[in-house]
């Protein structure tokens, strides 16, 4: 086995098909889109060379900044929520519920396998106000807290937060399971030694458990970041970017520009900015964690 994998030709033979598909499916569209950014027009009208005008336009477009800010805010809130709650759940599984955690793990993981559109339907019913109160508003009514009844998804001040809650709820089970797997790998004797030394509760987690599962934690953060930066179908299904533009993220704005308004060039420019944003943030996270790990 070792002989074969030591042979460069053999390695190439193994990875060639996958590499080819990867290049065709991933790099070609990226290059294609980058070319579009220098053009304006649509499929019907035809394309005219526009130089850098799309790039100038994007940096003086208030809607772009608005959706960029929405995306960043969404990413910060949701990534923090997903990974933190995922971690808390996994700690709960390992240290408190232990053997009986199977059922709870399944339940928490359940939303991950549900289709996004179904979850969006669920949440829009949950936070409904008309024609009938949804669960949340009904609950507030029963508890005599009528002043807190709100059209949750119909106003700019709350729609964004409902979207965040939905996305955290949907994916935290996924991170819980990944981190749970990481925790299972923490050697029992290390934990016991720490306990003998008097570490327990949060101290034990902070100084022993977390450093040991750090690589998995970092992977989770990167997974979550790349998922939330590109958030699209959740928004379309729950609020369609509204009310107004309050939940229009970069990818939704890109879609509107390219396919609703027919500005392919401008849409591609937004896509390219999104690509760089994802790349830079991922690299930063990677670099910071790498430095830490080599200390």
């Amino acid at each position: 086995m070792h002989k074969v994998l030591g042979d460069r030709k053999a390695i190439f033979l193994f990875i060639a098909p996958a590499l080819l598909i990867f290049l065709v499916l991933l790099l070609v569209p990226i290059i294609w889109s980058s070319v579009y950014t220098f053009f304006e027009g649509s499929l019907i009208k035809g394309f005219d060379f526009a130089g850098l005008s799309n790039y100038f336009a994007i940096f003086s477009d208030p809607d772009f900044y608005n959706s960029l800010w929405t995306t960043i805010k969404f990413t910060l809130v949701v990534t923090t929520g997903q990974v933190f709650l995922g971690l808390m759940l996994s700690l709960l599984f390992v240290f408190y519920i232990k053997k009986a955690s199977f059922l709870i793990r399944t339940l928490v993981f359940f939303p991950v396998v549900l289709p996004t559109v179904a979850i969006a339907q669920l949440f829009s019913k949950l936070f409904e106000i008309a024609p009938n109160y949804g669960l949340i508003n009904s609950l507030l009514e029963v508890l005599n807290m009528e002043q807190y009844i709100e059209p949750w998804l119909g106003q700019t001040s709350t729609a964004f937060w409902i979207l965040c809650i939905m996305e955290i709820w949907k994916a935290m089970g996924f991170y819980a399971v990944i981190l749970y797997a990481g925790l299972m790998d923490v050697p029992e004797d290390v934990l016991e030694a720490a306990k003998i030394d008097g570490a327990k509760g949060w101290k034990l987690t902070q100084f022993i458990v977390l450093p040991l599962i750090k690589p998995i934690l970092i992977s989770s953060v990167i997974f979550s970041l790349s998922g939330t930066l590109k958030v699209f179908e959740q928004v379309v299904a729950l609020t369609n970017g509204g009310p107004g533009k309050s939940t229009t993220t970069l990818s939704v704005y890109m879609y509107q520009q390219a396919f609703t308004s027919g500005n392919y060039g401008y849409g591609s420019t937004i896509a390219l900015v999104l690509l760089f944003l994802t790349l830079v943030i991922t690299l930063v996270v990677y670099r910071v964690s790498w430095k830490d790990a080599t200390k």
Partner: protein
Amino acid sequence: MKLKAVLTLTFALMLLIIVGCSSNDEANENNESERSSSDQREINFISEDTPEVQEAKILSDFDAEQSDTDLQIETIEQNNILQQISLLAASNDLPELFKYESNQLGDLIDNGSVLNIEEAFNDLGIYEELNPAAVDLLEQLSSGRGLYALPVELNIEGFWYNKEIFDENGLEVPETWADLLTASDKLLEAGVQPFAVAGKERWPITRLINGYVIRYYGANAMEDVSNGDLSITDQGFVEAATTVQNMGQDGYFGQGVNTIDSDTALDTFLQGQAAMYYSGSWDVANFNNEDRNQIGIDNIGLFNTPLVEGGEGKLSDWSMNAGLTLSLSADKYDEQMADWVKEAFTGYGDKAMKEMGMVSGFTVENMPEDVSPLTELTLDTIDSAENAALWFEGRFNADQKLVAEQNAQLLVNGDISPEEYLELLDEELKK
């Protein structure tokens, strides 16, 4: 040894996959050649309707009787039709027939990909089948380029109201916006929600703004804006936006207007929970549906958008539209298609009315006797209309439409002022 076996197996699998793919291709080719060897001509039709309803049903019923053609209907969600058709147009592969937004046809007309209906129908000798008012409307929407779309439906818009609720509260049909607001206040006091508005769909809000505007400036208001004769930040528009904002803030639209979709709004009205519902005659089919309509067909009345005191609008002007219109690919229009079109659209108005109770932009020669009262009301109203007013976004491009509609949600919520709303729109219109 093991490794060799694995390698051999992998190659064998890859070979199998390749062989599988290629034999699939062959199978497909065989299918296609079979199809083309039969003499049925395939006519492709992209519509937002399924073959069981509206014009799609009429045309597919017609085609079922034809032995030499085979109509293939592909149903696409209305919001995706523009995108799908532009992709097909770009690859020179428009289907023979397709539904489209008549005010967005401009580019397709300019590059010659859609058929000139006026010429074609004159050649076929069936131009008289078209209702002149509908033709006017469509020519207006193509910005004077001519007639490139068929009005397979024709709608008037207005306020549908629940007669029983009006009677119970001693209300009469309002003649002016002031009357409308007073009536709404009375309804609110009596604990009845005045309007059902589908704010989630956005356009029902801008239709109300438009309603005020066309009464202030007359039916040509939005035309004048697009010609530059009128600024969208003028007094009449400010008053219109302010009125609609206040209606929202005062609770005329009920709670959470921006979360209401069109089905919910319609059901709110049809279950007697709202007194009025602004909509077009496309909803008449739903009003006629007894399972859905719990307030009774005879209980629904229609009044035109009320007047603005001192305004130029008249009650004989109605908001009208032709919904999604039907266009034909110029490339694929050959003799066989011409014959098909001639047969299919001769007497189309009668067919639509008789079979579907549907009002189209084709003339009706023989009115069936058992027409529903609401369909009759619609027909009479269309006949009585002197001028047709376009809807708010009728002259807007896709970007302008998006700005008008998205910000309308913020307007009714009170997040932006009427002046801000109009300034943002003005900026986009000037781009």
